[in-house]
């Protein structure tokens, strides 16, 4: 057994992980979530705003991170739509526009009573990394003069009177890296005291938690945070329970559970093999 494990081809481990992820997806395994206080604070930051508040939706991610961030971005969009908040979509990532477009498509499909230009607007991609944040936070039109279709901000009811991001009631950021949550905290939320919540990839989470609660009202860490957030959303809005698309992150937690169990087992087995090898003088 020891020799077998010591010389095990790593491709068997890849196969094991593949099965651990594929089986729950195939059978549609889902598990109940218990929302953490951190996730509740994100939910409440959006929920406690008066209906029709102005929310800046900074979706800074690309297709490479959509597996982690799409479900939470969709959930943010759904909650804002249910609260009739005015949504201003923008991205600092060049591959971000298709991600925003999918959220716009969601609004058209699930909330047909909302009107483009009155309830939500797509301001598209702004180049210059953190530069557009620094500009838009004091003078929106110095960096964004028109929406993604070239319609002037002055010609749309929801943008005509907006001078800068300081007029927003909340910033929601979904971040896959640089530029992302850190830049929104550094250049918008901290210097101008704009309430901000964020959702980020797992890799970034440990480095962004220190900003909570004084510089960030709350943070959703990776797909686990998204699943807890979806759970809260389904609890608060029972009409969403009929919508299978509103359970995207919850569905992804089945593969997470099984894959994590496999990885924990592999770590234990790997350590046993190591110690047995050391006791035999093989190491």
């Amino acid at each position, binding site marked *: 057994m020891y020799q077998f494990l010591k010389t095990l081809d790593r491709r068997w481990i890849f196969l094991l992980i593949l099965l651990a992820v594929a089986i729950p997806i195939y059978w549609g395994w889902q598990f109940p979530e218990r929302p953490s206080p951190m996730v509740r604070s994100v939910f409440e930051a959006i929920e406690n705003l008066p209906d029709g508040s102005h929310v800046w939706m900074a979706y800074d991610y690309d297709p490479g991170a959509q597996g982690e961030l799409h479900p939470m971005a969709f959930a943010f969009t759904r909650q804002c739509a249910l609260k009739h908040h005015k949504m201003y979509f923008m991205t600092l990532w060049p591959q971000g526009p298709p991600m925003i477009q999918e959220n716009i498509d969601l609004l058209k499909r699930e909330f047909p009573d909302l009107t483009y230009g009155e309830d939500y607007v797509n301001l598209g991609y702004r180049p210059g990394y953190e530069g557009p944040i620094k500009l838009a936070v004091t003078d929106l039109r110095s960096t964004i003069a028109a929406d993604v279709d070239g319609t002037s901000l002055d010609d749309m009811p929801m943008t005509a009177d907006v001078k800068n991001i300081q007029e927003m009631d909340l910033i929601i950021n979904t971040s896959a890296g640089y530029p992302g949550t850190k830049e929104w905290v550094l250049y918008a939320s901290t210097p101008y005291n704009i309430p901000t919540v964020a959702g980020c990839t797992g890799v970034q989470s440990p480095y962004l938690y220190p900003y909570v609660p004084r510089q960030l009202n709350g943070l959703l860490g990776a*797909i686990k945070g998204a699943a807890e957030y979806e759970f809260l959303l389904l609890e608060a809005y029972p009409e969403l329970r009929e919508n299978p698309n509103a359970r995207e992150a919850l569905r992804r937690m089945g593969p997470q559970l099984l894959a994590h169990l496999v990885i924990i087992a592999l770590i234990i087995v790997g350590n046993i093999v190591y110690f047995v090898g050391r006791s035999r003088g093989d190491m």
Partner: protein
Amino acid sequence: MEREKLFWTALMLLGGLFLAGRAAMVGNGRVYVQAETIAETDAGPVVHHRGVPPSQRSEANVSLSWPRTIGLWVAAFCTLGIMSFVLGDNPFYKLMESIFVGVSAAYLMVAGFWDELVQNLFKSIVPGLMRNSFLPGLEEGLQPDLTYLAPLLMSIMMLWRLAPKGAWIARWPLAFFIGATAGFRLVSYLESDFVQQINNTILPLIVYTADESFDVWGSLRNSLVVVGVLLGLVYFFFSVPHRGVVGGLARGGVWLLMITFGASFGYTVMGRIALLADRLQFLFDDWLWLIDPTMQRMGM
């Protein structure tokens, strides 16, 4: 080695047969669109093709979209090609990697041209020309902003490094960009990161709840934050040898760092599994039609 080649060849053949059989019998991997007229113009109606679930394929104005169907199959093979790297470097992976790099570079160039050069630079220097060509939605009567000639000049200087002579000219704009970026970030980092993070660490060690009872967990959490920061700082304080009490505290700092790295690694694993789950769901749902979590093919 020969046995391994035989195994993979047989696996590929079986996979191909399965795909061909399933495509013929179930018709998986097909994308349907519905034609919608979004505007009437003198030249005729402007039609938008909206993607619809396969369950609506028999409805009016719904048809099979060959470009989207081909795109879906290409995406599926690209996913498999990239995933094949776990079996070792191979030509299929190399091909997909090259496609990915090429497409990304081209996408960034196009986005840079339209969103940076046209939207920012040319619009400011020659607004009339842009309105008559690339940006018809631009408001009328905009005056040229000649301050934008400075970045144009610096951009030309930057490109000078490609010329056979005078590559040193590129150093001037580069020096400007580095200096400006450093100055730009310094203030924000000092204000929002450095000072605010110190502020975030100044916490009450004894916490009371709203009804003035002692909050054990709150006190423990705040104490842990304060002690953790102090231990971390001691570890990075090298002016005193890490011996005796200082050495003990520094060791505590190392433990905390290890826990942070462990948490970071755990989160990274979770992130990677989420990405794999997303790709497998795409393959099983959109491509192979093995599962239907969003009920797109109900009744089919």
